[in-house]
């Protein structure tokens, strides 16, 4: 186990820069999730950490050692690939023991460690099988087994669950988290799925277009997104955004499209008339007499909650209610965002304005 320091790392392919100076400190034993839309550079960063891509500038260190020019096999890391990359001509046991075999470990040692990893992952009955004979979830576990056997300083996961069906993905998510709690190995996990990020991470790093937008614990990111991108990316259904202006004469209010007026608890300093984006999470709407009028478009009940799509000042918004209202499309309701948990962003820069 080791800490990992990523300092001002840049990566260019030819003249095209894909990572523009990324710095991420990772503590020993931490589970860090790099999340972002495709093309944001998260996988490239992971592959640089693994040594599969070289580093254009900046440094990456594992433990106390700068690994920029260290061969992948000397870095003491293990990686789980998106397509698992299991060797098709080797049995499960051989797949898991391959790295030890290359290290000239004795066959007793290999057997012992493969057996132990197989027990952890409930793979013991499958050791003699070939990857083709396994289900998707089993292959995924073999890929993790191959990583565990080596007992590395750092685990790297590259979108390991994206080839699984929805149900299995949820199960494997829990399994990976449980595994981390048991082994406490420093883990860097790449995904584009913010739910995976929220559920598994100690620390989430949101990346976008080759920069880090924000990092922090899942709930920090959820409650205090630093900019509009993070606000929109984290959370499902996504946060609602309304464009408008701040008014501070008398009571602080947000003036939205088509005369929608929403209350603010406090207005940011010197912000009268400032163009802003007002953000509110779907679950922070309540039905109240002093709310803004909206017309219901679609109602989607899921049992535990109901998602309501409505037109608020001409803009589509989504609200989630846990209590069961009787709504029909076309109904008029008064939606009121909770002023204590709303978000204000600068319209031009997307930066968060309220604290």
């Amino acid at each position, binding site marked *: 186990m080791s800490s990992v320091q990523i300092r001002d790392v840049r990566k260019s392919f030819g003249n095209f820069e894909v990572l523009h100076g990324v710095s991420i400190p990772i503590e020993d034993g931490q589970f860090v999730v790099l999340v972002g839309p495709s093309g944001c550079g998260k996988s490239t960063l992971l592959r640089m950490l*693994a*040594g*599969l891509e070289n580093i254009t500038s900046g440094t990456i260190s594992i433990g106390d050692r700068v690994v920029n020019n260290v061969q*992948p*096999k000397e870095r003491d*890391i*293990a*990686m789980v*690939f*998106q*397509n698992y*990359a299991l*060797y*098709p*001509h*080797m049995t499960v046991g051989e797949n898991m023991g*391959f*790295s030890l075999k*290359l*290290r000239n470990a004795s066959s007793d040692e290999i057997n012992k460690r493969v057996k132990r990893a197989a027990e952890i992952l409930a793979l013991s009955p499958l050791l003699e099988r*070939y*990857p*083709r*004979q396994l289900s998707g979830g089993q292959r995924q576990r073999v890929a993790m087994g*191959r990583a565990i056997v*080596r007992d590395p300083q750092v685990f790297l996961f590259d979108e390991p669950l994206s080839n699984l069906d929805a149900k299995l993905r949820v199960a494997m998510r829990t399994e990976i988290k449980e595994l981390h709690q048991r082994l406490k190995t420093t883990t860097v996990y790449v995904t584009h799925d913010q739910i995976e990020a929220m559920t598994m991470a100690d620390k989430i790093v949101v990346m976008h277009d080759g920069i880090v937008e924000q990092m922090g614990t899942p709930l920090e990111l959820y409650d205090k997104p630093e900019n509009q991108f993070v606000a929109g990316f984290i959370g499902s259904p996504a946060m609602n955004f309304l464009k408008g202006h701040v008014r501070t004469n008398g009571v602080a209010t947000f003036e939205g499209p088509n005369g929608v007026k929403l209350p603010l608890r406090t207005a940011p300093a010197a912000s009268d008339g400032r163009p802003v984006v007002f953000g509110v999470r779907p679950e922070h709407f309540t039905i109240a007499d002093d709310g803004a009028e909206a017309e219901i478009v679609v109602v989607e009940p899921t049992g535990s909650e109901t998602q309501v799509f409505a037109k608020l000042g001409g803009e589509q918004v989504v609200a989630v209610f846990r209590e069961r209202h009787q709504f029909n499309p076309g109904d008029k309701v008064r939606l009121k965002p909770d002023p204590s948990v709303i978000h204000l962003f600068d319209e031009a820069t997307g930066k968060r304005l309220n604290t």
Partner: protein
Amino acid sequence: MADIAIAPRAKPQLREATAWDQLRHNRNWLGFWFMLPAMGFLIFFLAYPLGLGIWLSFTDTRIGRVGHFIATENYEWLWDDSIFWLSVFNTLLYTFVASALKFAIGLYLALLLNENMPFKAMLRAMVLIPFIVPTVLSALAFWWIFDSQFSIISWSLKHLGLISQNINFLGDTTWARICVIFANIWRGVPFVAITLLAGLQTVSPSLYEAATLDGASSWQRFRYITYPLLTPIIAVVMTFSVLFTFTDFQLIWAMTRGGPVNATHLMATLSYQRAIIAGQLGEGAAISSAMIPFLLAAIMISWFGLQRRKWQQGESND
């Protein structure tokens, strides 16, 4: 589509299906009809000539004279014929050396072309050139290259001062064997290289990355990943290569006609010489038929080599 429901048709009369109806409509018979053209083609152009050839080998047929059945006399005659045994030796030597070198060079080229390098597409196209030139033309070119008087190799070496006399490439037994084997390799390498390259490209790059992280050196990546995954395609390509080389005729006939002193006579060229040039059809057919056990052995080896390996079996739901 509104006129589907038109006037009800007269009910078809029920009758027993005749044998003719069954021949026309039974699924099994239908399959047979579809197979018939291909079957006819194979029987007429492959099985019949093969059978006729084997039959001829048991007769004393000559050109212009219908033969009589003489049982295994041709084979007994060949058994004591040292030239026949020389041709068997030549064929085995030719096949073994040429195939082994074609495999080695082909695999090397395939690995090389699988790397990222400038002008990759052009290099791949260039490798194919020997394959697309008609065999006889390339054989004629080699004939000139190895000519005793006008050889460009002798000329170059003489001008470099390395030799003082022309090398008698096709006149010396050892040199002649080397030359025909060289020409065969030159011609056969592209097939091996391109087929193996196709095989290499089916290996997922992530396997190499995984192996790199597992600590494999480039030799270990070849030994433990590339080679095992390539074995099925190696089996196919080498079977074809061995069959083509064993039955080679054009190159030899155009370059040496089996000479000097029968040193490059293969079974195919000897058979041609005895049957067509000398007119001894029966004896020539016996030489051709003697190739069958060798070819069958090669096919059997590849058959067992080609058996789907355990790791290829099972679900293919990836």
